[in-house]
């Protein structure tokens, strides 16, 4: 009987994503049919003809997912305690430009320099997040406003640094401006060797070595949240600020700590690209990951595994944008689909959560079996 029940529970847990995927692909099919390209739907699943193309596709999706995962984690840490850090965007921009500039001029040997870059990025992100944190606890300024404003400030400041003091003096003519390129021993090795070791063909694209760090960070954050006292205090504050306060959690200190943590994690977002692809910060450095991170965090319901899945989903959808264009489908359709998917996933989640909660209460009322806390959150 117990196993039958847990089976049902698993069923419920899987129901949400399943329903969501069905709904969103139905919607996508409708959109595609509307522009007379219904045949293009397969492009979502078609990773390529040759194994090598397939590996390429997967690596493309993964490379996109890694920074999104980090962004989602950074946002979620704040969310878990009820802090809305919209400023992840600005935090990673400042972190990347400073880390890139500093990493290019330090004389440290490779691995140490990589470590330094990571530390500088995290410290910068945390410092940039410290502003709204301090304003909130000392002056009661809503972090929603201050982080929105600081994002704009970060754009201007980063532009100033890039065009001025951090600009590579030996740039060739042309419009693009970079910081100095990192010394080659500070480039993070890719993981293509690993793929080959698994018997896969070597992809043309480099799988970001930062994947390893992202996984470690994810595990660390999951551990921090679920096993440590700090994590408990954080989650308790998010679930009920009043109860947490009564339990002796110092709300102001927690606000500052969590903002700093969120900012430090945000500092990592630009590094996969910096250390694995561009090796310099420039005007063309990917922007907007902080905002997408909000969607990813919420899609993953602020849990580390959920965020990983959400980031992968975004990665795979984004990857499809190019094959779809070859089919004559404009990239805007992919964006539309992303929006639809986010909406249908969360709606399905919500419906299923309610079903589960109702069941939990029913079972409790019957007083028969155990119900876990998974339905919460």
């Amino acid at each position: 009987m117990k196993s039958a029940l847990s089976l049902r529970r698993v069923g419920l847990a899987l129901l949400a994503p399943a329903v969501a995927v069905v709904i969103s692909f139905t919607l996508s099919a409708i959109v595609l049919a509307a522009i007379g390209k219904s045949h293009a739907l397969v492009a979502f699943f078609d990773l390529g003809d040759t194994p090598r193309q397939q590996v390429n596709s997967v690596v493309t999706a993964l490379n996109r997912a890694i920074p999104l995962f980090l962004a989602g984690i950074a946002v979620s840490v704040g969310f878990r305690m009820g802090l809305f850090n919209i400023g992840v965007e600005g935090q990673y921009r400042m972190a990347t430009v400073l880390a890139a500039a500093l990493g290019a001029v330090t004389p440290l040997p490779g691995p140490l320099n990589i470590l330094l870059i990571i530390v500088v990025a995290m410290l910068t992100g945390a410092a940039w997040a410290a502003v709204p944190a301090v304003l909130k606890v000392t002056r009661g300024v809503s972090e929603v406003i201050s982080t929105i404003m600081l994002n704009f400030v970060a754009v201007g400041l980063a532009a100033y640094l890039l065009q001025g003091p951090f600009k590579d003096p030996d740039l060739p003519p042309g419009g693009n401006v970079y910081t100095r390129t990192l010394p080659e021993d500070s480039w993070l090795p890719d993981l293509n060797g690993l793929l080959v070791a698994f018997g896969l063909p070597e992809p043309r694209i480099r799988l970001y070595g930062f994947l390893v760090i992202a996984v470690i960070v994810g595990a660390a954050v999951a551990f921090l949240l679920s096993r440590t006292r700090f994590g408990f205090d954080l989650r308790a504050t998010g679930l009920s600020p009043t109860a947490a306060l009564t339990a002796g959690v110092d709300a102001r200190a927690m606000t500052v700590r969590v903002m700093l943590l969120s900012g430090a994690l945000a500092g990592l977002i630009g590094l996969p690209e910096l250390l694995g692809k561009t090796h310099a910060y420039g005007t063309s450095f990917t922007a907007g990951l902080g905002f997408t991170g909000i969607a990813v965090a919420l899609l993953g319901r602020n849990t580390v595994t959920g965020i990983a899945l959400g980031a992968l989903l975004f990665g795979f959808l984004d990857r499809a944008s190019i094959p779809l264009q070859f089919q004559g489908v404009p990239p805007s359709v992919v964006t539309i689909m992303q929006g639809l998917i986010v909406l249908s996933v969360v709606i399905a989640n919500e419906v299923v959560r309610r079903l589960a909660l109702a069941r939990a209460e029913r079972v409790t009322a019957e007083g028969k079996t155990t119900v876990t806390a998974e339905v919460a959150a």
Partner: protein
Amino acid sequence: MAAPAVELRGITKRFPGVVANHDVNLVVRRGEVHAVVGENGAGKSTLMKTLYGMHRPDEGQILIDGREVRFRSPADAIAAGIGMVHQHFMLADNLTVLENIVLGSEPRKGLRLDFAAARRRIEEISSCYGLRLRPDALVEELGVGDRQRVEIAKVLYRGARTLIFDEPTAVLVPQEVDELFANLAGLKAEGLTVIFISHKLDEVLRVADAITVIRRGTTVATVDPAEVTARQLAELMVGSELPTPPTRESTVTETVQLDVRGLTVRNREGRVVVDDVTFQVRRGEVVGIAGVVGNGQAELVEALMGLLPAESGSVVFGGEDITSWPTRRRREAGIGYIPEDRHRQGLLLTAALWENRVLGHQTLPPIRKGALIDRTAARADTERIMREYDVRAPGPDALAIALSGGNQQKFIVGREMSAAPRLLIAAHPTRGVDVGAQAAIWDQLRRARAEGMAIILVSADLEELIGLSDTLYVILRGRLVARLDPATLTPEELGAHMTGCQVPGEGTA
């Protein structure tokens, strides 16, 4: 004979997995005060909500003045002359009294809300029933009694002929209760019908014209208050005896556990709410704090827990000055806390029970494991609490929200006791809890006291205060105005002290 004002026939209401009401029959005559009693979870509120159109019955009929009605929403019930004062007040704090009262049936002048007309009408009701309303005050500034009068005004404003009160007296002091009952009598005199729910059986016997007992979702009897005693009524409800606060055999020692001197506290708006308070609690002693809600007892407790800073004065705990310690450090030093509002302060409602076991005890054994939380230990200890305190829940993984109020409260008591605190601050430990659970909690408090725990008890239940306390203080406008001996005190005397209208000197220990 005229048709009854309200008649419920064979009402059944099912929630997923629960039959909250089953074949309930209730007849309420016009112009009577009709009480409904029953255990926690017996289905009283559900029945009243059904009558008020908040949910539809699965089976059965509702008759108003002999005619069958079907309510689709409270609006229908209101139109049929039924009004309800809910167990948890249904007021918007940030709106004015006037706005709360007229909401949903506003007088209009063209497009706009006719404030003048509304004010006139409210003042009329206010003077007619002696409700003393201030239409332009914000509800958040009001005390509990005021809020209840706003609720009553809401109902009267809508021209209700039948009024439902769900546990109206749970949070009132005797004087306020008396006033409420005077109001009820006034309503009755005007020909209105009153249905009310209460756990306080003596009260019920005092004011009701008829009493219906509900057990496990169904009506078991309707009795005449003149013909039953409280004890008989309780037996009808639960089949067990009505508990009384335990008798006293002093366990007070000489060791002072808590020494509060000249404590002054300002609230978050900067008003002095605790004013130069001095008292001591010895090991093995229960110190009761009595006071009308809003006289500073909540802030006093918060200051003792470190939730509000002390403006001046000192708090010495076991010889150490803890005046400026943060909450966590106080808890670590051995202060336990049963907060007043269990939903907002005591529990993480959407978290598992075992996580709630951790709450407030993150840094204490057996939960603490370096910087980590020992989940296994937390689970095991949750199971122990469930066993020892008779918390009826499926297991440590059940969500706190899924427990009934009484079980939630027993769990909180068990949790706070498990750290073996040297001082326990218990605020309204049995509020809204049914008679069985109440007895269990009293039992626990008494046992802890016998083992040498110092206890500060804040309660609105005067029987409880008098029955449990070794020493009783009365707090009025932030000051301790009397120190009383519970051994010789009646609730009425205590009530008089609390409202500040006692003859000076009388009853002072």
